[in-house]
């Protein structure tokens, strides 16, 4: 067993959250810069230049890249051989994550965007609760990934239960259609997370988890899905939607597909879109 201090986890997670909402990651900056250089549409090129300028201003002024500092989502990979020292006064890891998130949002003056109830809609005032997804694995490491997920892009998500008779082409066409329907709403150029397989609940989790993949240009290790990602990105960037939906080539920066086993009667598919302010990061402890 390895002992791990929750105080250490808390301080690391807090700075992860603060960093993610202010500093665009190097792979995103590279991706935007590369796309700006190759963008054939002049006003789209200007838009991409403005997004890069926005990232510079946020970093310099230490303010959020986007006013929608999002719902806080954690994906935790928890080694079975870990023993936590409760040296921060919390009851454990979940409470530690929640408090680190709340403190980061309050101290950094991030917007609190969560409401208590979907119909009565009172702001919780501290962006709580964060959504926490757990996965367990052998060993003694702890990996915590964070995504600040904006509401506008989240609203463009789609889920469909296909049947096994459907071809890969039909599913790809549906994914592209999802991006076209979203148009300018999710603040393109977007990152497109796709989940295939699993069941009704895990397929949307897969689609969101797909957004975590770094670096941005990394392909699925399975060449079958790597090829699908490449085709999808090409098709999406052939739609002409462009940055901010004002026309141009750069509609998406990356498409990440994650697949999982499913029931022989089913073929679930889900799309979770993220905006160009792709605020994703991780700490490994």
């Amino acid at each position, binding site marked *: 067993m390895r002992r791990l201090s929750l105080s250490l986890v808390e301080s690391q997670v807090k700075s992860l959250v603060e960093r993610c909402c202010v500093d665009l990651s190097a792979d995103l900056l590279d991706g935007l810069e590369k796309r700006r250089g190759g963008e054939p549409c002049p006003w789209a090129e200007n838009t991409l230049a403005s997004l890069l300028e926005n*990232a510079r201003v946020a970093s310099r002024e*230490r303010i*959020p890249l*986007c006013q929608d500092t999002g719902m806080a989502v954690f994906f935790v990979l928890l080694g079975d051989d870990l023993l936590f020292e409760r040296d921060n006064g919390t009851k454990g890891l979940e409470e530690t994550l929640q408090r680190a998130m709340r403190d980061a949002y309050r101290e950094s003056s991030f917007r609190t965007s969560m409401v208590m109830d979907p119909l009565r809609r009172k702001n919780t*005032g501290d962006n709580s609760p964060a959504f926490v997804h757990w996965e367990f694995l052998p060993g003694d490491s702890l990996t915590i990934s964070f995504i600040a997920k904006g509401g506008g892009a989240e609203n463009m998500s789609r889920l469909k239960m296909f049947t096994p008779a459907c071809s890969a082409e039909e599913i790809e066409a549906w994914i592209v259609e999802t991006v076209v329907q979203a148009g300018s709403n999710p603040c393109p150029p977007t990152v497109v997370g796709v989940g295939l397989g699993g069941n009704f609940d895990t397929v949307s989790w897969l689609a969101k988890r797909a957004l975590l993949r770094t670096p941005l240009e990394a392909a699925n290790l399975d060449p079958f899905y790597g090829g699908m990602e490449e085709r999808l990105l090409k098709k999406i960037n052939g739609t002409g939607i462009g940055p901010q939906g004002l*026309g141009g080539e750069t509609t998406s920066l990356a498409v990440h597909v994650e697949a999982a086993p499913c029931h022989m009667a089913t073929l679930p598919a889900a799309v979770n879109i993220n905006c160009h302010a792709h605020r994703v990061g991780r700490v490994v402890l």
Partner: protein
Amino acid sequence: MILPYRLTTPLKDEEMAPLRAGDQVLLTGDIYTARDLAHKRIQEAIDRGLPLPFPLKGAVLFYAGPTPKPPHRHVGSVGPTTSGRMDPYAPLLYSLGVKATIGKGPRSPRVKEAQLLHQCLYMAALGGGAALLSLSILSMEVVAFPELGPEAVYLFKVRDFPLTVINDLHGGDFYLEGPARYREGRP
């Protein structure tokens, strides 16, 4: 490089008329933020004949919910939210004098009709460009519904706030024309 138009609030019809979908605008003056819950409250006030939190006549509405003002700066970050969610409220607000709205994303056919009828502009600000946009904001203050937090109505004093005309006063729509112009190879 085509120079941007300069507009100052209150907006005048004769200054808005020459604008075309796709034009760049630098806006100076007063703009009011209102998003989902603020719209619901304004609608309720109108339905019940209660006084409104700010004069709608001539107003420019910004669909946005800013971050709080950090200690080291005069304003937080602010950029547009998705306008389509405010479509159910927009035609009534145009009929009561709102002259322009600012957001991101397309408007419904019903809203576009109302914009033409009442001669209202719809402009987009840089979505996800909140840090950059904040440089054009001189001050922010809550003017209504403070209990809504980020969904309260804020008055922003802006100088040269950068915008793109989406729906002009003549039926133009840059969310249709921009991608079409690019696809047809005539950027």
